[in-house]
């Protein structure tokens, strides 16, 4: 009982906001966070794509082990791990129920489990990489690999603003609840209550749309005063901005180490 209570507390919006901020800015001291963004992109390009083409379970398991280690090193927020597990469990359980329903047996689970292992490798790789970069670094990295300035800025901006937006959404939602009247009867299967909450959840986007529009304009105007449009389109400015990105020994070491590990997996199995 104690745990459920604390767990629901943990899932509060405030906590989520904190976890998101933590994901964005809290991991600056880890080993992976010190690497160059390009290293991380390269690493993710490998571990995000290659597992799709692998069918040898032992290699996949070896990779999964490696991913778990990097996830631990990156100090990924438990909330994100929890969402991930929920997704994987839900998917597996759902398909199991379906195939049992249509007369299959448990052997149906095996290909599904292999798919789950594949998905876990890819998901963990993306979590590791994403949690190791703060918005500035992500934006610079994207700019460096040739993403247009507007897009890379917008991504970094969204990354930074999400926790704030979430908080604002929560405030609007709560004020709707305060002023509104919850249904007196719950209805069959709580449908009245569910309907009520869904309605509020959608109505809350109305004020949020307006305030976000205002915020977007302020941001873009601020960018303009800083001459960003010039910066996005001129290589000299870009060079100056990205001068701090440098591939160091650590980066090469990490990439070579990963490559050796993967190669040895292929050789052993």
């Amino acid at each position, binding site marked *: 009982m104690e*745990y459920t209570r604390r767990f629901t507390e943990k899932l509060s919006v405030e906590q989520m906001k904190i976890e998101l901020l933590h994901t964005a800015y809290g991991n600056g001291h880890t080993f992976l966070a010190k690497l160059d963004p390009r290293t991380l992109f390269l690493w993710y390009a490998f571990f995000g794509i290659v597992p*799709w083409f692998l069918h040898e379970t032992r290699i996949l398991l070896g990779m999964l082990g490696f991913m778990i280690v990097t996830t631990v090193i990156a100090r990924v927020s438990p909330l994100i791990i929890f969402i991930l*597990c929920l997704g994987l469990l839900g998917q597996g359980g759902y398909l199991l129920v379906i195939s049992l329903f249509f007369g299959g047996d448990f052997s*149906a689970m095996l290909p599904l489990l292999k798919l789950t292992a594949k998905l876990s490798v890819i998901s963990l790789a993306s979590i590791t990489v994403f949690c190791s970069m703060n918005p500035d670094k992500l934006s610079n990295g994207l700019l460096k690999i040739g993403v247009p300035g507007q897009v890379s800025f917008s991504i970094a901006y969204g990354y930074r603003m999400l926790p704030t937006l979430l908080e604002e959404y929560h405030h609007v939602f709560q004020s709707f609840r305060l002023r509104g009247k919850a249904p007196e009867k719950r209805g069959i299967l709580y449908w009245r209550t569910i309907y009520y909450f869904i309605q509020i959840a*959608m109505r809350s986007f109305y004020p949020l749309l307006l305030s976000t*529009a205002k915020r*977007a304009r302020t941001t873009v105007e601020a960018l303009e005063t800083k001459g960003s449009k010039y910066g996005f389109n001129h290589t000299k400015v870009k060079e100056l901005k990205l001068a701090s990105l440098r591939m160091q020994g650590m980066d090469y070491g990490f990439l070579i180490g990963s490559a050796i590990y993967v190669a040895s997996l292929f050789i052993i199995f």
Partner: protein
Amino acid sequence: MQDVTKQRYKLTQSQKMMVFILSMSLYGLSNMITELVPSAYLGPIEFSIEYFAFIPLTLCILFHPLYAAIGASLGEVIFGEIMLGQFGGFGELEKFIAFSLAMYVAGTYVRDPKNLRQVGIAAMLGVSIHQAISVMVDMLKVWVGVEELEAVPGLAESVVVVEGFAFVNDLLFSGILFALLPTIYLVPRLYGKIEPLLGMKPRTRDDHFSLTEIIGARVIAGGIFLAGAAFLFEFLSESGINIIDWEADFVENYGQWVIWLSLGIAGLIALISILVMTKNKSKATGMTNEKRNVS
């Protein structure tokens, strides 16, 4: 010639960026919310909030559809998927294209945002295009035999039934509840109010989008190429050569406990992360308090 009254709806570079940012951050936020809301199961049938499609729909109707659509898709991929570790590899590419296309078509369909009938039709149109594309891709995968469904009794039929049901469910349940009704509610209320906040004039009946201007031959070719590539990659990744023999062996040798073992491990990890979360709570709040003080 006839274009004296029919002006092109033009935006400056910064206005495009505003629309893009607005659409991306809001749809990313809503994706995060839908990701967290649990879905209800009725037997093997799932009732869930698939997505808050009304946000990109509303924005596509009120602003330039192209930038709103691409912004929303990008927001979904980045904040709803990569950041939460739900990224599905190349399959996402197909989703990205399908969603952008559906929202864009819905946005261009509406000539007059004050006309509720047009808005309603556009909302349903957007959802059905998106769902139809994704169901077709899924069915096609089964048809071509991409996934090893033949090996598993009962799964092939179930996929078709489930896909068909998911389509109807998404169209009627998500489509009406999360696209049609909120879009009809929001568009007239926001029309004329939100545009000045971004420093632009509201869309009028006379504005029109030239399809050829935006979707040139290069974009179409690129889209087809990317969709083909996405499908090819999925095909390659799903079609193993030696899966079937090996599977049978595996079950004989190790039995079904392997399955339960792996399910148990997943459950265990979930449990541990719950424990870690409850344990870390005081620490986390302490840290953020410090951060606040510093900033």
